[in-house]
């Protein structure tokens, strides 16, 4: 399965590389545009010196973790975005269902946007820069936690993208509302969760667990405590939360596929 994944992705990348210049321009474009997001964030935090008691560098840790994960998720699951929407409108999802592979796998391999690494790279720069400022005490456990956190974050964002796409089975178009959770979620968790009211906190931790992308891990790294009592050790639960959420998205996808109606002709 992995070798087939690589093969199909390879085919995608080869056809994108027919347009090399546009590839590089877009890569830089994504890095710059998400860089601007951070500049906006920095100006905001800089104006008030801190948000909810978190300094700019500490916010940088939050921002960095979320951006890296989000960029990775976008890189691997953009097939669920515009190309999938187009498939639904044209009825070409028919072709997917006549192939002896899972439909989820096929949509995922229908697109691969290396250029989305622009966002991740920029997030990684912010993260490293923030870490240098903060004199974080790196233990082995904490080092291990990092890739786990990023992977979990990526999985949470992927699940969100999948949920958005699944709604297409009923509406044909991806409703804009899903952007509240992907792009909106990314922006929202760039600030410490503790500044939001109880309802929003709970939604973004336990319903749409975008909060798990970075908040508990940052608590642990920065040795802070959550005013509402979320233990920093929750950081280790992120992989579990992400898996459960992703499984739920997968289940939703299956229901969607069974409702697929194709198009006339």
């Amino acid at each position: 399965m992995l070798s087939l994944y690589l093969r199909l992705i390879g085919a995608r990348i080869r056809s994108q590389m027919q347009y090399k210049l546009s590839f590089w321009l877009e890569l830089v474009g994504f890095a710059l545009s998400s860089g601007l997001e951070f500049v906006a964030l920095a100006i905001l935090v800089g104006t008030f010196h801190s948000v909810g008691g978190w300094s700019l560098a500490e916010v940088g840790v939050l921002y960095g973790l979320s951006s890296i994960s989000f960029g990775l998720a976008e890189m691997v699951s953009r097939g669920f975005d515009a190309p999938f929407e187009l498939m639904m409108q044209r009825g070409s999802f028919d072709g997917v269902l006549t192939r002896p592979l899972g439909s989820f796998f096929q949509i995922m391999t229908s697109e691969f946007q290396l250029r989305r690494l622009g966002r991740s790279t920029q997030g990684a720069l912010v993260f490293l820069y923030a870490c240098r400022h903060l004199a974080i005490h790196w233990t082995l456990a904490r080092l291990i936690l990092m890739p786990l956190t990023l992977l979990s974050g990526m999985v949470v964002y992927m699940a969100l993208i999948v949920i958005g796409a699944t709604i297409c089975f009923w509406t044909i178009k991806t409703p804009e509302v899903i952007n509240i959770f992907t792009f909106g979620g990314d922006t929202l968790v760039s600030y410490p969760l503790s500044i939001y009211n109880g309802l929003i906190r709970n939604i973004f931790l336990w319903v749409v667990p975008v909060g798990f992308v970075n908040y508990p891990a940052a608590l642990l790294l920065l040795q802070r405590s959550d005013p509402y009592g979320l233990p920093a050790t929750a950081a280790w639960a992120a992989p579990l939360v992400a898996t459960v959420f992703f499984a739920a998205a997968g289940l939703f996808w299956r229901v969607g596929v069974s409702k697929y109606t194709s198009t006339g002709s």
Partner: protein
Amino acid sequence: MTLIEVEHLRKTFLLAVRQTGRFASLRGLLSRQTRPVHAVSDVSFTVAAGELVGYIGPNGAGKSTTMKMLTGILHPTSGRIKIAGRVPYQERVEHVRRIGVVFGQRSQLWWDLPTIESFALLRHIYRIPLARWQANLQSFSTLLDLEPFLNTPVRQLSLGQRMRADLAAALLHDPAILFLDEPTIGLDVVARERIREFLEHINRENGVTIMLTTHDLADIERLCPRVVLIDHGGVVYDGPLATLRTRFGRWRTLIVDLNQSVDHVEVPDAELLRVEGTRVALRFDRDRTTAAALIAAVAARYPIRDLTVEEPEIESIIRDLYEQPGSLA
């Protein structure tokens, strides 16, 4: 051996009714008013291994919808489908591994990749043994003349080339059954003939069972010993093409050569089609009169020198059937 079994198949689409008036889109979100469209209302048939069946009917009869249920794309609303012992929509992956599908309207190949690369990806997707894949590719290249455009990206292929590539792609994994929805749509006469020859070949030589829809009756006459004719989502005829002719071909044409030229010919129970000098063509309904009675009636008024009775073309039979839906019942 029965390969395809379909019993009381039914597919109803629920179309959202567009709301009008004030706050239409908002109300559309809140209440989902729907209107049922019975695309397939009651279809039953069986297909034995090795058959080549034409699935025909007028626009909107439900042909494509049936094909989509047979290929596991759509879940039926009710009814039963069993193909090679499997229920397509329940065991989709296993089912599609054993079938080939071509939709004339759209390609299944990778748009940006050279044709040969699409074939190569299919080898991995279907896990076709290399030797088998090479042998098939070799054979299809010859039969369909794929060589000239194997390295051309699919998006640059002409319609005829693309259709040939799609056919080859659907058969590389040696499927037992091939489903074709309008495989000759939009092609010129030569390209159509080439595809017919190819289908005939893989049906005869490779034993592939084929089910195809088409609006080109020449496809049917040339390829399909058996036709299933549907209309308004139900089967109206299932049997040999020849029987369709005798059963529905009520119209005959009597052509007589008279001794002298005439302007007009008037006989009961017949309709004058044309007069060309001494040659007169009359159309009559086999159910209302016989050729003998008509000939006698003509001979009584005009001296006849020669005559022929023409059987109807299959094309005109089908045209009549499509144009008068009532005549199908």
